[in-house]
């Protein structure tokens, strides 16, 4: 179960402000597309269009077919979405939270079946959360809730997973672990991943391709080494960005310059 995703000429206007202006990007099946760019570039909005959480012009394509008019439930079977700051309801057990992933498969009147329950166990198992099943989801650490969200996504069994800044609030080690986990799920299950990432180094190391957004436009789209260049990043972020090679891995940092040091 693997699917390709395409954005065709996506435009979004919120109030009177154009947020996205004709964005076209495509993601191959089983690929990890990283969406980078400064705050306010439109990354989250682009991801929300995929998930059907915002109204837009243009088309979202899954395996070449437009899904814009599809009912919510059908869309939810194809695309799972984790927002930037998920709301973990106080008192809800981890098991119950992951069970929410089965929602698109349940009619409005149906209760969860034995198969739904076993899908939840399978997802908990895959993310080493079985011992957490009865814990209060609101009491977990950042890294643990991250895994809970991924388990919910797995339970949803969607071939495309959209993650908005999934690892923003984690420490370095937890972030790395989470990204590795996401990559493992991608390779093992052929899941297509689209994620907004602030950490450019992480984007360079984990994403197969990168879309660089600025002011609602795609400035660069391609392999990490093609897009994450000092020239392009300098244009979009600040001129002091350096792209360094450390033991074959790309590291992207912003240096303090003579100018800023003097201030």
């Amino acid at each position, binding site marked *: 179960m693997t699917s390709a995703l395409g954005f065709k000429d996506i435009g979004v206007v919120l109030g009177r402000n154009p947020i996205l202006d004709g964005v076209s990007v495509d993601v191959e099946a089983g690929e990890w597309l990283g969406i980078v760019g400064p705050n306010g570039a439109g990354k989250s909005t682009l991801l929300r269009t995929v998930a059907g959480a915002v109204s837009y012009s243009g088309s979202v394509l899954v395996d070449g077919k437009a899904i814009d008019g599809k009912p*919510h439930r059908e869309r939810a079977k194809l695309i799972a979405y984790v927002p930037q700051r998920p709301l973990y309801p106080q008192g809800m057990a981890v098991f119950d939270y992951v069970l929410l992933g089965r929602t698109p498969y349940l009619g409005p009147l149906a209760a969860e079946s034995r198969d739904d329950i076993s899908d939840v166990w399978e997802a908990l198992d895959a993310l080493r959360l079985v011992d957490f099943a009865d814990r209060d989801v609101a009491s977990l650490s950042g890294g643990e809730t991250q895994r809970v969200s991924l388990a919910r996504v797995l339970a949803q069994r969607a071939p495309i997973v959209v993650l908005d800044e999934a690892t923003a609030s984690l420490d370095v080690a937890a972030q790395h672990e989470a990204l590795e986990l996401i990559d493992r799920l991608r390779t093992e299950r052929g899941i297509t991943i689209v994620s907004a990432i602030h950490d450019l180094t992480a984007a360079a190391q984990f994403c197969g391709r990168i879309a660089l957004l600025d002011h609602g436009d795609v400035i660069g789209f391609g392999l990490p080494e093609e897009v994450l260049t000092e020239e392009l990043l300098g244009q979009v972020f600040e001129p002091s960005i350096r792209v360094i090679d450390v033991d074959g891995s790309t590291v992207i940092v912003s240096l303090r310059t003579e100018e800023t040091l003097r201030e």
Partner: protein
Amino acid sequence: MNAGRPSGTRLHWWWVVGAALVLFSAVIVGVMVGPIALAPLDIVASLFNRLPLVDLESGLGERNEAILWEIRMPRVMLAVLVGSMLSAAGASYQGVFRNPLADPYLLGAGAGAGLGATIAIAYGPAASGWIVDPLPLAAFIGAIGGVALAYILGYSVRSGRTAVTLILAGVAVAAFLTAFQTFLQQRESDTLREVYGWILGSLSTAGWGEVSLVAPYVVVCLAVVLVGRRLLDVLAVGDTEAGTLGIRPGRVRLVFVIFATLGTAAVVSVSGLIGFVGIIVPHTVRLLTSASYRVVVPISILLGGAFLVLADIIARVAVTPAEIPIGVVTAIIGAPFFAVVLRTSKGVVS
């Protein structure tokens, strides 16, 4: 493959049986207590006598049979209906608005019913001249009208038709209707006592007529809330994420509000504005069992009925021969009880 593993939250059968037993016991005690005490065994015998193919000697005698079936039982049954409905409506409102303080009167159902009742009491024709009693009808229409007004106002907000705008609209509507009601109440001061009594709530006028008037609404509304309760858990993660899980949050919210309001309007029309039940019962259930609405809704329905039956017993007997308004009892007994549960629980409140 999952044998022995923790189960997550399910509606365990012993919770349901336990809550049902509490309700049954409350009903028995409710019909037992009064100026003339009835023996519990006689009551149970008389209950079973009503079943087909059962013929037991209840030992109550004709007069006590009449007290049991014509006076006490309808009142207790009405308490069950009112308590169950207000609790289920409270849980629904808390779920769809993700707000632990939400109660069935949040969007103006209470204020609207109060206004309707005040108009009926102050200006209405004598009940005997009408086919239907104007008081419950006016309260019913007022409650529905209040919530409808809040919805229209909330939805006319152009930017962001969210749960919060709806709550704010409800607050505005409730304040407006309450102000209007207070104005009428002050102007027509000769009916003040009656209006005030109605607002504090009472089951003293209950007969089988009231029960059969309210029961169809309650049954239908409870059924809808029960069947859809899983969706309240989905709404708990927020509208955006709930939408990406395949539901339409606005539509789900509307359906729950419609049925919670319809049921609330029906029970309020005969019982007056009994407060606190819709908040305390779902929260107590949450603290004792689970925060999942898959559990909270059914158990609240059972225990809410029991709670109101017990509150009504106190309302009847505490200062006999007078009655305390039941709304006063629910708060006086309910608040300390809730405080104890809050202190001794695991602290699971959403």
